[in-house]
């Protein structure tokens, strides 16, 4: 009888342990969700320090970029518990704040002495605040980023190519500083034979499904003078979105697409741009700063062969904003652990290491360090870009606004439908309908 009792006790204990063990383990674990790209690998490396200091095991859910928004927004909308921490796109802030998906961090920042003034102003505004221009913080700036350019420095340096360019355009061949120059250089290289291979002018973003062509075309639109509103916060888009300057910017983007992209380049985003450059197809390519450390390390096209330049200006200097802030998901079962990670991540030393590993820290101790601009070949351009970034709408209805722009731009640029003015007029009409539905107009 005693044996039976012992056996029952043992079995019960084993059952309790079996049931309880996952909960205990879960309490010591944090899941961080982000996109699957180079900086995510750097974050895994960086987070090992957090694990060794706190004892918390870090798990990571990295989703490929084309599916990132679908996957994560579905998770948030359905009240899932996959992510304790989320490095989400800047455009999601409005919706996530208003729908209660993110934890408001003001009180936590005050309690822990985390100051937003320690981070670059543009980054705080873009990655942390909602509504814009107010000190309401829903994220800690985590990864500064902007759209920029890289080029084949070794091709640009070839004497015969330089001489031919000088003869043709009466100026030295160098990284373009304006959109006019950019198109000129792209035209010069397009169709040229280099090292026995036909090459093309530039790889740009034309992707239709997610955000590609919008991120690419705004890199032309902003410098030409495109604005979302005449008066910020008034949603008065007529004359701003479809201004003559904006029309000129869109026409410039289409000109670049038509003259100088490789064949079959009708639905290209980050991956395709990198592929075109790495395979030696193009003289120049646009992409996010996030990829630059990896490109510089590339044995075939990196090192001395690659050069970087900030998005060219035209009427104004401007760059399309990328990057993200890190937020605590309101639905988490491990609030304390998630907040502890934010506190750890905000430390200046951790931010310095983050930059050294390939992450783009926007903490002022990193950016203002006298050695920063020399720390990487693209660091100086990054500083310039982060001071001139412009972002897409961060409204709760950003997804509808983005889809409308994707359609209008792709129809005009890739499918040759209508004129630039008609495309932008149509965009004003689409966006007006959205803001009317939202009760903002």
């Amino acid at each position, binding site marked *: 009888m005693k044996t039976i009792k012992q056996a029952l006790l043992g079995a019960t204990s084993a059952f309790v342990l079996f049931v309880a063990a996952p909960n205990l383990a879960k309490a010591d674990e944090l899941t961080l969700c982000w996109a699957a790209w180079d900086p995510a690998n750097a974050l895994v490396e960086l987070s090992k320090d957090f694990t060794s200091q706190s004892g918390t095991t870090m798990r990571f859910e990295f989703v490929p970029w084309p599916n990132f928004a*679908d996957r994560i*927004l*579905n998770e*948030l*909308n359905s*009240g899932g518990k996959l992510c304790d921490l989320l490095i989400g796109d800047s455009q999601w802030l409005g*919706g996530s704040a*208003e*729908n*209660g998906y993110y934890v408001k961090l003001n009180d936590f920042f005050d309690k822990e002495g985390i100051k937003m003034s320690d981070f670059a102003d543009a980054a705080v505004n873009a990655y942390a605040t909602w509504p814009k221009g107010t000190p309401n913080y829903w994220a800690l700036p985590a990864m500064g980023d902007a759209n920029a350019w890289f080029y084949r420095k070794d091709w640009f340096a070839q004497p015969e190519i330089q001489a031919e360019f000088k003869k043709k355009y009466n100026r030295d061949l160098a990284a373009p500083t304006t959109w006019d120059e950019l198109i000129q250089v792209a035209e010069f290289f397009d169709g040229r034979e280099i090292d026995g291979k036909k090459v093309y002018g530039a790889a740009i973003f034309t992707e*239709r*499904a997610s955000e590609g062509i919008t991120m690419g075309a705004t890199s032309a639109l902003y410098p030409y003078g495109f604005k979302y509103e005449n008066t910020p916060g008034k949603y008065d888009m007529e004359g701003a979105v479809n201004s003559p300057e904006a029309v000129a910017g869109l026409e410039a983007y289409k000109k670049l697409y038509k003259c100088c992209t*490789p*064949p*079959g*380049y*009708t*639905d290209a985003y980050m991956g395709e741009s990198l592929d075109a450059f790495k395979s030696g197809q193009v003289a120049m390519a646009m992409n996010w700063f996030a990829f630059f450390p990896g490109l510089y390390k590339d044995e075939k096209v990196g090192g001395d062969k690659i050069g970087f330049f900030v998005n060219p200006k035209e009427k104004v200097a401007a760059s399309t904003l990328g990057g993200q802030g890190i937020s605590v998901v309101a639905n988490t079962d491990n609030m304390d652990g998630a907040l502890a990670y934010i506190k750890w991540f905000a430390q200046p030393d951790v931010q310095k290491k983050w930059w050294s590993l390939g992450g783009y820290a926007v903490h002022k101790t990193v950016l203002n360090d006298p050695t920063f601009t020399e720390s990487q070949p693209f660091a100086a351009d990054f500083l310039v870009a982060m001071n001139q970034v412009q972002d897409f709408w961060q409204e*709760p209805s950003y*997804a*509808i606004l983005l*889809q409308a722009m994707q*359609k209008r731009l*792709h*129809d*005009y640029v*890739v*499918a*040759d*439908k209508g004129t630039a003015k008609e495309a932008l007029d149509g965009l004003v009409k689409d966006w007006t309908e959205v803001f009317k*539905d939202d009760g903002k107009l």
Partner: protein
Amino acid sequence: MRRFKTQVKSVTDTSSTILGEAVARATPAPIASRIRGLSDRSMAWLFITPAIALLLAVNIFPLIWAIYLSFTNFRANRPNAALESVGLSNYNRVLNDPNIWQAMQTTAHFVFWTILLQTLIGFSLAYLIDRKFRGHAFWTTIILVPMMLSPAVVGNFWRFLYQPQIGLFNHIVSFLTGIPPSSFEMLGSVRLSPWAIIIVDTWMWTPYVMLICLAGLRSIPDYIYEAAEVDRASLWRQFWSITLPMALPFIMLAVLFRGIENFKMFDMVTLLTGGGPGSTTEVASITLKREAFESWRTGRASAFAIILFVAVFGLANIYVKALNKVKQR
């Protein structure tokens, strides 16, 4: 003799009795009668209830829910926002949206051309295979291969084939016409991209139409052809008077299946062009997906889905009535 007959009858009676008993023994008594309080009818309900519950849960409930949502301003990405009734506003907007009519037109274009090509080629192949030439079984198997592949595989496979610089398709066209391979883009051109998808869908699903047509051709009794030959009817006459009319219900069935499938076409278009360039190949299902899961206008997407459902259901019903008339002739 009478005695013998009696003996035979007796043996037959005995056999019947033995057989009857054996059948009786082999047939179980109604199971329900062994379980107290359960009739056979109750038992039948017990068995089909899970299936009915599943059907209600995965088919009927979502349909009713979608109908309900189509009259509201619900957005799946704003679950905390107040749910308001908007009456017929979603239907009104969908029916007055030029983009949606454009998508419907694109869909109709795909459905028309894919069905036409698949029916013509599929029936022709079935007619040839039905001749039972040497090696016909081998060729039948080869023809069926595309149909057996996953659309994901087919989509990616053809994306490579259509690649203007290294794709085999452009090189074959170049070899036949002399046009440089990188001078045209099947997936990037407004003019060619719809045809790029039609070619792939026809390549993949013609075997399916062929199989149905083959079943129709094999169901025609040989004696009808024999009678026609006795009457000295030419092959052409036999085809128009016997083969085609008798295979017509099967052809119509294939058209029905392919029509419904292609009206919902999504995977192939997504993989090949994603609806582009611009909106050139954006069929109704892609517009619906964008509305529901990219723009998150769930109420409006529900209204669009209901309109599509009613359209397919209505057209299919009319078509089935026509099919029944053809069968009765």
